[in-house]
């Protein structure tokens, strides 16, 4: 028991030091930014016609404190305007919801594909190259098509909403790591374990539930985390692409459009998008905590 508590204090001490160093890392980045801004040439460092270090004007590199204080100020001079940070948080929450839906679709599709490919070698050979290739198609190329086709879907009381197009596009990025990770995971059981199931005369489904899925967890979790980050990226891009209102993608281009007169403002949604991605990936890490008994061999991976 004392061993357990000692373990815990040791881990919490380690965690605290990790956080501390992380903060130091960010502060170091801030320091580098400001130092370069203070001492770097206004037009950046140009070598052989190539600008290898950025310009240091306020337009190109706003002061970090300007970015921070800008967050606290209202978005516009309009009397009803909310503070910038609140606008970003609200937009981020919208996007998070859409990304979550995209992630779920990606999860279902990814696992479905992985199951098929695990079950039939021919399916693996036939599909896997295309799945890999699918990710080289720029999202933006088909975002309008998805929106257009989606708006045609109307089944009974169900009517396709624009946010669903965005979620669907997000799922296009999310499914990929999930399919690959799940396939690897489902194929991961050692021969000794598959043969054990065979000696128990266990069928496909019991082998799946008792062996393959549990064994896949250590592969699946990082895949799901990547999938979550991808879902957020996909949702943001799709928002920009299809012009969906309310999300972070929308304010991202809106504020980018105002960056000439208000350079610090444009950074707000960038930080919002990063925090959003981290939150999404972090939530999956939480899932990993729940499944920790399935990750007992993870060190070995």
């Amino acid at each position, binding site marked *: 028991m004392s061993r357990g508590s000692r373990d815990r204090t040791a881990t919490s001490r380690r965690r605290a030091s990790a956080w501390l160093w992380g903060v130091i890392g960010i502060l170091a980045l801030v320091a580098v930014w400001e130092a370069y801004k203070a001492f770097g040439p206004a037009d950046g460092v140009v070598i052989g016609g190539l600008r290898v270090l950025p310009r240091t004007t306020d337009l190109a590199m706003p002061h970090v404190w300007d970015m921070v204080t800008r967050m606290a100020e209202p978005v516009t001079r309009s009397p009803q305007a909310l503070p910038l940070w609140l606008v970003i948080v609200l937009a981020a929450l919208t996007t998070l919801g859409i990304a979550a839906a995209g992630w779920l679709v990606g999860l279902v599709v990814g696992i479905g594909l992985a199951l098929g490919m695990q079950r039939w070698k021919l399916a693996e050979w036939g599909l896997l190259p295309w799945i890999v290739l699918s990710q080289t198609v720029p999202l933006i190329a088909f975002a309008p098509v998805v929106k257009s086709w989606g708006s045609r879907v109307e089944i009974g009381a169900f009517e396709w909403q624009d946010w669903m197009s965005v979620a669907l596009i997000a799922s296009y990025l999310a499914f990929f790591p999930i399919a690959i990770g799940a396939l690897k995971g489902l194929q991961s059981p050692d021969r000794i374990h598959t043969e054990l199931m065979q000696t128990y005369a266990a069928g496909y489904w019991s082998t799946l539930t008792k062996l393959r899925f549990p*064994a896949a967890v250590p592969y699946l979790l990082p895949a799901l985390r990547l999938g979550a980050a991808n879902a957020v990226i996909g949702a943001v891009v799709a928002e920009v692409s299809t012009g969906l209102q309310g999300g972070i993608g929308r304010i991202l281009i809106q504020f980018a459009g105002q960056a000439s007169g208000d350079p610090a403002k444009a950074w707000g949604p960038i930080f919002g998008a990063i925090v959003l991605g981290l939150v999404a990936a972090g939530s999956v890490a939480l899932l990993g905590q729940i499944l920790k008994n399935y990750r007992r061999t993870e060190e070995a991976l």
Partner: protein
Amino acid sequence: MTDAAVNAAEYAVEVAAVDKTFDTRSGTVTALEGIHLTVAPGEFVSLIGPSGCGKSTLMRLVADLDEPTSGAIRVFGKTAKQARLDQEYGIAFQQAGLLPWRTVAGNIALPLELHGVASAARRDRVAELLDMVGLSDFADRFPDQLSGGMQQRVAIARSLAERPRLLLMDEPFGALDEMTREKMQAELVRISGETGAAVVFVTHSIPEAVFLSDRVVVMSPRPGRVAQVVDMRLGADVSGGARASRDDALREERSFFEMVTAVREALHGAPVAGARGVETR
């Protein structure tokens, strides 16, 4: 398979004229050739032989994890496949092969769960088995919290879960250090005595084979054949057939060393000459 089949039911395992070849990139490998072997109910038979002689292959054929190229295998009078479907045997491998995400109890319960044993009955049986292998206090631990010997005991408990009349064990103690191994051997002797199951046991260790078995089947290298079957005549009452009481004292007895020598010589094919073997794979 003419009149042998008539009496097949008498045997726990009957291997008749079995050949097994594998197709590999570099040609066909004959792993087993003309194997004849019977194991009586309750009998403890060890397979010993150099690496690659086909011990595991033979065991896998009996377990219906693979099919013979020719010849027939019957387990309690049934085909190997039927025996597998009927769960006539329990099996344990060199690695314990526990599922790392299941507790000790969960691992032992696995076959029971798969075969729909009700949860109360399952709990009782698991408790019984845990007691048998002396791990009652470890029911809720996970495999990675156990030593190698303990893991192997869990695997053995698991193989016994459904009270099989036949136990197949492929080098189950291969990964253990010698002291733990001796302890495990003693336990296996006790357990197999208690359950009365026939055991087919693959090992590389001559003392282990001698200590455990009623008969030791010595196999020759590729193509694997049965080179010799050595009956163990051990202990105080050296009366052929019946198993002598096997305890640690036996290991220091003269008859033990004699049997070790007998198996050694069978293995080397002749009274041993000085060897400088250049191994070829």
